[in-house]
């Protein structure tokens, strides 16, 4: 724009018009002028564009404000409307909180995996994590010599608030264990040195927004309010108050405190609750016991605050207690939680800065902040050192926040650990952090949902099913998977497409995807015997007995020949022994049917009667000697009953018949590993992975074998899935 001004201004140079006489002036104007400022601000606040679905606030509020003449008609209504929208957000957030808790209960960090990637501001290429990791290691190393920690300058790590808070909390706790024999001052100095070089303010609590973000928020707020002035008195008052308090914000406590003073702690909260109730209409809010707990903790906080010991004044325990007393933390279901409404400022801030990521950030906060888990340790400490109010402390420990952290603390405190332990813990901790940014694929597939590949060249192919069948026959399993995915995308009801896709995945050693595909096949064709058998086998592999039994019984029930053996009412309550008896009857009925022996073999695997399973598979193999998957089943059964040498022979048969049979290669690796022959096992795992890099199990087993074979030097290649390097290092034969 500035450029154009310059150019057009130059063209008009001879013109007498004063405005365009000086192109540089207009350039300067364009650069520093208000228009570009607005633009800058727009860039800073991605959500301010109305296209963003999360910014309903304005898209709904605006029509009301813009009705001509209506601005002054109902100022109160406007204020309420706005407030209710605002509060609506909180309700939304507490809904999220519930979701979060649910996820937490079910799958732990699996849920984080899904949400966290969205909030990593710069896409992590792994380097900052590694820098951080080695940095933290050097911090730990300093514990051995007891020497002051002199950090080296670090590049920009791009740590999020959550990361910082996390490092801050954990490092101060770790430090107290590591330097248990040192003075408090020394510990503080160590931690401060660490935090300082990581550019983490040791005093800021993570919940508080950074000052510059705050300014931005305020600007934005004022600007957005501009078109409503003279605004509704409530909103106006809020702004003033907000700006007044912003000045003091460098100490978040004082902010909250003065707010409290003005409104009275409980008055404020109940007012807040009340307004939530009335304006939103469905308030799930804080229950009475939380109020009681809050009142109690508030009293405690006061008592504790009178303790003159400066050490105690700075302790996290006191901070925790005062946080609780202000309602920022609530106790729910014996777990300390951050109160969504207590964080309204942060949340508001995030809403406008983070765009669609704000919810993720909020959840992330909850993950990292976790004062719940670590604070308990401080109760223990508090009991030892300070104990100003025994009665309350006892009560607090009864809440039993999360006793594992407690145990951890005690164990570490006892110094029961050998050398290198802290290293491995720090390493695991790094992994724990890494895990949070890891892909979410695993989660999706573990829920029985089929996960399609991203880029599929076969989409648009005129006959992907035929192509897939051809590829499958040629043994190109991963290619066949793509073609078959294209087929089922085109014809989602094609049972044969799904079935073959499931088989391809099973042969590719991916049971989760195999199950997901086979379930779709079964939906399309509920009585297909091959599908039922395949589902039975896959669930057996996943150690899911009852599911496996259900499908194997289904096989019998829908079999044209043996269906009459199975009483339909039995399917309501399946007992292994009954089903096994039926299959034995079937096998007697037609001893030359290979299939019934195969199913029987799977059944015996389920009950871990491996000798009988082996006999069944051997019998079936006499009838079907060219069935490679049958050889693999025999091998796997032998391996599971510790006849590893026989198993390897059987796998070899399977591989002679089907050289690209990934499952058999991976099973070979397992057999060698179970015999303690880790070097061999590595080669087979790598071979399997070269054929299907998506075989998750093989990656995990490879990692175990690498560390058992003392090849820790290759662990990184494994973690980075560097197949070229692994293949070069571990060629087969």
């Amino acid at each position, binding site marked *: 724009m500035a450029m154009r001004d310059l150019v057009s201004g130059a063209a008009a140079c001879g013109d007498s018009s004063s405005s365009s006489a000086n192109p540089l002036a207009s350039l300067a104007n364009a650069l520093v002028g208000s228009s570009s400022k607005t633009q800058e601000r727009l860039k800073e606040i991605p959500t301010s564009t109305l296209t963003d679905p999360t910014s309903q606030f304005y898209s709904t509020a605006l029509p009301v404000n813009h009705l001509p003449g209506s601005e002054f008609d109902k100022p109160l209504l406007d204020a309420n409307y706005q407030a209710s929208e605002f509060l609506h957000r909180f309700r939304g957030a507490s809904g999220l909180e519930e979701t979060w808790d649910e996820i937490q209960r079910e799958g732990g960090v699996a849920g984080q995996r899904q949400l966290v990637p969205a909030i990593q501001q710069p896409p992590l290429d792994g380097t900052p994590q590694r820098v951080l990791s080695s940095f933290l290691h050097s911090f730990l190393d300093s514990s051995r010599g007891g020497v002051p920690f002199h950090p080296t300058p670090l590049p920009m790590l791009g740590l999020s608030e959550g990361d910082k808070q996390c490092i801050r909390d954990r490092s101060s706790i770790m430090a107290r264990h590591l330097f248990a024999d040192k003075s408090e001052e020394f510990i503080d100095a160590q931690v401060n040195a660490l935090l300082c070089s990581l550019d983490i303010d040791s005093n800021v609590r993570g919940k508080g927004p950074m000052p510059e973000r705050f300014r931005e928020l305020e600007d934005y707020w004022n600007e957005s309010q501009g078109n409503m002035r003279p605004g509704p008195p409530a909103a106006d008052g809020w702004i003033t108050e907000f700006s007044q308090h912003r000045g003091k914000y460098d100490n978040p406590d004082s902010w909250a405190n003065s707010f409290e003073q003005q409104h009275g702690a409980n008055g404020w909260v109940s007012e807040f609750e009340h307004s939530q109730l009335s304006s939103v209409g469905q308030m799930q809010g804080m229950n009475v016991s939380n109020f009681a707990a809050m009142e109690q903790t508030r009293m405690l906080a006061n008592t504790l605050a009178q303790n003159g010991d400066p050490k105690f004044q700075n302790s996290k325990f006191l901070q925790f207690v005062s946080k609780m007393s202000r309602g920022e933390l609530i106790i729910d279901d014996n777990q300390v939680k951050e109160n969504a409404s207590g964080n309204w400022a942060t949340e508001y801030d995030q809403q406008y800065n983070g765009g669609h990521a704000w919810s993720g950030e909020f959840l992330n906060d909850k993950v990292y902040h976790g004062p719940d888990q670590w604070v308990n340790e401080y109760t223990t400490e508090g009991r030892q050192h300070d104990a100003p109010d025994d009665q309350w402390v006892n009560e607090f420990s009864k809440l039993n926040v999360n006793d594992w952290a407690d145990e951890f603390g005690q164990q570490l405190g006892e110094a029961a650990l050998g050398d290198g332990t802290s290293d491995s813990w720090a390493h695991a901790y790094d992994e724990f952090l890494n895990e949070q940014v890891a892909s979410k694929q695993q989660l999706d597939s573990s829920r029985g949902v089929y996960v399609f590949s991203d880029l599929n060249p076969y989409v648009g192919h005129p006959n992907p099913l035929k192509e897939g069948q051809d590829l499958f026959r040629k043994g190109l399993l991963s290619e066949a998977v793509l073609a078959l995915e294209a087929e089922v995308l085109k014809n989602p009801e094609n049972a044969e497409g799904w079935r073959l896709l499931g088989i391809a995945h099973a042969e590719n050693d991916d049971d989760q995807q195999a199950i997901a595909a086979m379930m779709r096949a079964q939906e399309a064709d509920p009585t297909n015997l091959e599908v039922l058998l395949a589902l039975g086998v896959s669930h057996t592999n996943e*150690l899911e*007995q009852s599911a496996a039994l259900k499908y194997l019984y289904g096989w019998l029930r829908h079999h044209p020949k043996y269906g009459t053996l199975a009483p339909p009412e039995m399917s309501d309550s399946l007992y292994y022994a009954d089903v096994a008896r039926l299959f034995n009857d079937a096998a007697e009925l037609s001893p030359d049917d290979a299939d019934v022996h195969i199913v029987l073999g799977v059944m015996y695997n389920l*009950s871990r009667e491996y000798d009988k399973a082996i006999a069944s598979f051997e019998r079936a193999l006499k009838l079907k000697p060219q069935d490679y998957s049958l050889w693999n089943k025999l*091998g796997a059964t032998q391996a599971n009953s510790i006849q590893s040498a026989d198993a390897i022979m059987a796998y070899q048969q399977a591989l002679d018949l089907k050289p690209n049979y990934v499952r058999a290669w991976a099973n070979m690796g397992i057999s060698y590993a179970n015999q303690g022959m880790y070097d061999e096992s590595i080669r087979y795992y790598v071979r399997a992975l070269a054929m299907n890099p998506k075989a998750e199990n093989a990656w995990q087993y490879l990692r175990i074998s690498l560390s058992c074979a003392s090849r820790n030097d290759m662990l990184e290649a494994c973690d980075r899935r560097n197949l070229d390097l692994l293949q070069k290092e571990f060629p087969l034969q």
Partner: protein
Amino acid sequence: MADSSNLKSDAIMEQMKQHFATDAGKQLTEKIGLVYQFHIAPKKLGFDEVVYTVNLKKGEVTKGPYEGGKPDASFSFKDEDFVKVALGKMNPQIAFMRGAMKIKGSLSAAQKFTPDIFPKPSKL
């Protein structure tokens, strides 16, 4: 025989029992020489727990608490999480950090509990 508890961990414990009969299994007892007790809960930690003793001194897996005194370390898991750890899908330290694994006893003994002590099931 599939028993009523139907834990996935049963399969792994069963295989572990057999594994002690092999050379690799016997080496484990020399390498570790500790007694671990596992409390496996089907759904929720602490509820309906099935207790296994994995005796890496003698090379035995038995159901029920350790009878020869105090185990060196005891672990509490949910069925699902135990399988994840035993099969190398989850690092024990990470399991611990998440609260998916609880430890009692000596932490240095617990440190020797790694995914490689369990044999891996092969797939049909």
